[in-house]
């Protein structure tokens, strides 16, 4: 887990201070971290609230961004199947891009019992969660004293850009990204942030189509 920690510090700070740049308070910013514990979805929620998007668009976007957790959840679930419901709920809340690959790898490498598996998951998650909360709080406080002209709200699209580029592993993913971007651009002036939803749907459709038909 330790090698992951330095990497989440800048993202945590950005996630904490960008809501401040959009006009939210530090408590608003921190509540997102507490309730969601999912950086990209937090940023999207604040951005869309700032654009006065409808709640359905916000929830659809949060769902879409967080869909990868369904895959993580499906793959880690058999290892936590015998845990009690409270532990499973906490494990769900703490599931992250960092804890998933580590636990998935080591659960298959070592023949641990349930208690060891839970302790391993909990140790990494508590460390990550604590650091994430501290970084977002630090970012939120820093955001209150940084002047508007620094344009720190621009960190949101830059962060999304970085996250998006990290996902472009195959040509099908690139087709997804390009088509999603183009459709979202064409639908820029549609009401209720519909361009975003259409961009996302068309991106997925073109990606699947490319993978199944063209390749």
């Amino acid at each position, binding site marked *: 887990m330790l090698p992951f920690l330095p*990497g989440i510090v*800048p*993202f945590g700070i*950005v996630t904490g201070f960008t809501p401040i*740049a959009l006009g939210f308070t530090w*408590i608003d910013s921190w509540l*997102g971290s507490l*309730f*969601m514990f*999912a950086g990209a*979805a937090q940023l999207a*929620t604040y*951005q869309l*609230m700032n654009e006065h998007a409808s709640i359905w668009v*916000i*929830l659809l976007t*949060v769902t879409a961004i967080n*869909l*990868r*957790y369904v*895959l*993580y*959840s*499906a*793959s*880690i679930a*058999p290892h936590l199947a015998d845990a009690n419901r409270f532990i*499973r*709920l906490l494990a*769900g809340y703490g599931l992250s891009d960092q804890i998933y690959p580590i636990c998935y790898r080591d659960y298959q490498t070592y023949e641990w019992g349930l208690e060891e598996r839970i302790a391993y998951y909990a140790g990494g998650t508590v460390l990550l969660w604590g650091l994430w909360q501290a970084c977002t709080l630090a970012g939120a406080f820093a955001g209150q004293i940084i*002047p508007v*002209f620094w*344009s720190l*709200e*621009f*960190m949101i*699209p*830059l*962060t999304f*850009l*970085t*996250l*998006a*580029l990290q*996902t472009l592993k195959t040509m099908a*993913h690139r087709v997804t*990204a*390009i088509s*999603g*971007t183009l459709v*979202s*651009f064409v639908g820029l002036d549609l009401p209720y942030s519909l*361009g*975003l939803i259409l*961009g*996302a749907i*068309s*991106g*997925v459709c073109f*990606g699947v189509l490319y993978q199944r038909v063209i390749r």
Partner: protein
Amino acid sequence: MTLDFLFVVGLAGIVTLGLKSSFIEGQTYFTLPPWLITALEFVPPAVLCSLIVPSIFKGDSGLVQEFGQVAVDPKPIAAILAAFAFFATKRTGPTLVTGMFSLYLVYWLQL
């Protein structure tokens, strides 16, 4: 903080928890068909790219709000330069730094 804010962020939190817990909690009740698992892989890049577009092409940056409009919006240019920085370094830090400094530079060059 308003009740509306709490409502939206609270619901977003519940949705996030639901997705994260979907199989950890519900593994005995359902399984996903393979075609859906394949489609899910494409959701993050599609959504993230769609999210980037409005925040780059709509609205004014803090620079514009403070010092006024310039002929060419610096945001799209800064985003392109940030993408180049990512391809060169594959790291988040240099991408963010390049994007922000490009934004300042492209704006300053037009003053």
